[in-house]
């Protein structure tokens, strides 16, 4: 009898435990707390893409995807706890979705041999694969973003912005300060004056900063915000009648959530992006058929097609393509995290590949190499159309200023390598 009970218990545990042969993907999401409104669409997009692959294709290379969700609340300590509690499940890759969590995980993931993908956030100099073996930040990073904003302003001014004033309104945190070095370099190169306007966390009160903008009348304002800071900044810009077409936010300040509070008056506000916008892609038909209609949509299923949903889906697509690459390289479907790293390092995203996935022209083409973990630094500019109620891409994808960025990345990663006694790879 005892044996029967023991056997049943073992069977139950075996059934409940994730199959170790599955491809385990951890979604470190934040569906609660002050940033939930942004965390939910990203996580929904991320999960729906993997659900689609499971439902439609039977996983990747015949191997099912075991999706594990862990709630971080956008809190660094909780994010690290998520990592520690899930890494034993055979996680192939982590996308921390927070610069704070990323900084904490870089040494841990490096020691554990699990790759990190920090798309559009995290430590910019991780682009240097010679130093950061386990960290990837393709297709674009913060410094690319700063350069994209200036390139766009240059384009609007016939290539000459000398003598102009550009203000950076930024979250007074490590994240918000990221673009400063790049912008200072670009200011020197192009001869514009840079005004720095930090905003205290969380950013609900910005009157001082916007009164200063009203007084000094900078030609352009760049925003590096997150959460409520974005909504308040856009509202304050509207209040002081700052021309919206001269106001441009980084990609984390460019979702529907950010312009909602200001309503129609936010029309014309611009934001950077490194992926396309909207739901006019063949893949959405598949998501509807295989995910939504089968009742498997993540969350409430009401975020499909939003900017951040697309970003989450794009991140999942890049992870899935890296898995495929790893499977091809190693000739096995059930890859390990170390093999996943190889897949990420040899990832190549082409227009042909994106079209075949039902995402034609959805993002820039790029190639990851041993030396370059950050892609080619392409991005685009979107603009809020209040009447249509959506952001629209208003430029083609263009490259960041590599002449300015590469020395900065080399210097920062070199310093990290020296501090941590890291031997350069890719020789």
């Amino acid at each position, binding site marked *: 009898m005892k044996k029967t009970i023991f056997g049943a218990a073992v069977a139950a545990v075996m059934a409940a435990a994730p199959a170790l042969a599955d491809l385990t993907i951890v979604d470190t999401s934040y*569906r609660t707390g002050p940033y939930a409104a942004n965390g939910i669409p990203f996580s929904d997009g991320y999960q729906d893409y993997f659900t689609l692959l499971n439902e439609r294709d039977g996983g990747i290379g015949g191997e099912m995807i075991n999706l594990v969700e862990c709630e971080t609340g956008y809190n660094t300590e909780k994010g690290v706890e998520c990592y520690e509690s899930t890494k034993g499940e055979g996680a192939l890759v982590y996308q921390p979705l927070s610069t704070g969590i990323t900084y904490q995980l870089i040494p841990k993931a490096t020691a554990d041999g699990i790759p990190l993908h920090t798309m559009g956030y995290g430590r910019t100099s991780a682009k240097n694969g010679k130093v950061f073996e386990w960290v990837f930040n393709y297709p674009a990073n913060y410094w690319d973003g700063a350069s994209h904003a200036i390139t766009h302003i240059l384009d609007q001014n016939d290539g000459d912005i000398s003598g102009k004033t550009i203000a950076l309104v930024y979250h007074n945190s490590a994240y918000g300060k990221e673009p400063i070095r790049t912008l200072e370099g670009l200011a020197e190169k192009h001869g514009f004056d840079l005004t720095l306007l930090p905003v205290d966390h*969380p950013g*609900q009160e910005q009157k001082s900063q916007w009164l200063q903008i009203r007084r000094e009348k900078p030609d352009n304002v760049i925003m590096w915000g997150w959460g409520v800071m974005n*909504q308040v900044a856009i509202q304050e810009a509207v209040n002081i009648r700052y021309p919206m077409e001269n106001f441009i936010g980084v990609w984390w300040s460019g979702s529907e959530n950010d312009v909602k*509070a200001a309503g129609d008056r936010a029309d014309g506000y611009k934001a950077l992006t490194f992926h396309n916008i909207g739901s006019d892609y063949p893949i959405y038909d598949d998501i509807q058929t295989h995910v939504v209609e089968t009742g498997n949509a993540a969350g409430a299923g009401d975020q499909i097609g939003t900017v951040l949903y697309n970003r989450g889906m794009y991140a999942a697509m890049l992870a899935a393509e890296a898995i495929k690459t790893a499977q091809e390289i190693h000739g096995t479907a059930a890859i390990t995290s170390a093999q996943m790293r190889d897949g990420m390092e040899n990832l190549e995203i082409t227009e042909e590949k994106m079209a075949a996935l039902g995402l034609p022209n959805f993002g820039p083409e790029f190639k990851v190499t041993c030396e370059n973990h950050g892609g080619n630094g392409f991005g685009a500019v979107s603009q809020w159309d209040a009447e249509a109620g959506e952001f629209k891409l208003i430029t083609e994808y263009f490259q960041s200023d590599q002449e300015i960025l590469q020395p900065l990345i080399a210097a920062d990663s070199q310093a990290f390598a020296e501090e941590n006694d890291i031997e350069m790879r890719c020789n």
Partner: protein
Amino acid sequence: MPEQLLWGMEVFLNGLMAGVLYALVALGFVLIFKASGIFNFSQGVMALFAALTLVGIMEGQVPFSHLINAVFGTEIHHFGWHVPALAAILLTMVVMVLLAWLVNHFIFRHLVNQEPIILFMATIGLAYFLEGFGDIMWGADIKKLDVGLPQGINGTIDEVTYNLFGYGFFIDNLDLWATFIAILLVIGLVLFAQYSKHGRAMRAVADDHQAALSVGISLNFIWVMVWSLAGFVAIVAGIMWGTKSGVQFSLSLIALKALPVLMLGGFTSIPGAIVGGLIIGVGEKLFEFTFGGMMGGATENWFAYVLALIVLVFRPQGLFGEKIIERV
């Protein structure tokens, strides 16, 4: 007039307006602390919950729709109607009174005579419960709140100051309305506390629970009433802050702006909350204007807490608070 002076005047006026918004949040803390000795950590979340409820009612949103849809496989989200702002505010007040009753009935009634730190811990628990409950009830998305209050630069002030000084001052219409409403609110609360039967009972409870009980005042009723009043203040604060940023979960963080106001003005004084709010608002804005550039900016929160700390050192009860004397 020198440009710097004009800008300083503009910053001063905007500081006053910001101070009123801080004071609106601080008032809720003061009401509950005064009547029950409870430092209500959940006041910020109450403002969030009130604003969520208000938008939900106005938009005809079905409460708990995500939960209902997940359990029953339905696809219901809205009732299909829109409720006018005033009616929605009244209905939200009913919800906040109900919440006050529930909070008192299920939590604080059981904690009578407990140490203040226990009561404080209970309000932390309440804050987390309410935040999660609000999320399940109304969803986590950012909601636009429009109760008809005007926003943007006040054209008259801009024009008048331009004609006078050659520089038009920026004053936000929403801030002017917030000031007007805050004045009405404080007058109403003071009149209520001074001249109404229940107001006097509230003050009696605030002075001495035991003595109030001995003359037949119902502690339960007074506490429900005070939490309801704090709920009403939370609605006003939720409307003002929610109109600025949209109704979202970071609204609960506005409590952080109220703490230095309370430290400065005193935890037991309604006028103290207002004066404290104004001092903090003006002080932090003028400090940022004058020294922000030299110190790298974003000095406002730092200044507010440093100022409050200095006041605490010299006057622990705050500028207007009652000095607590414990007799052996």
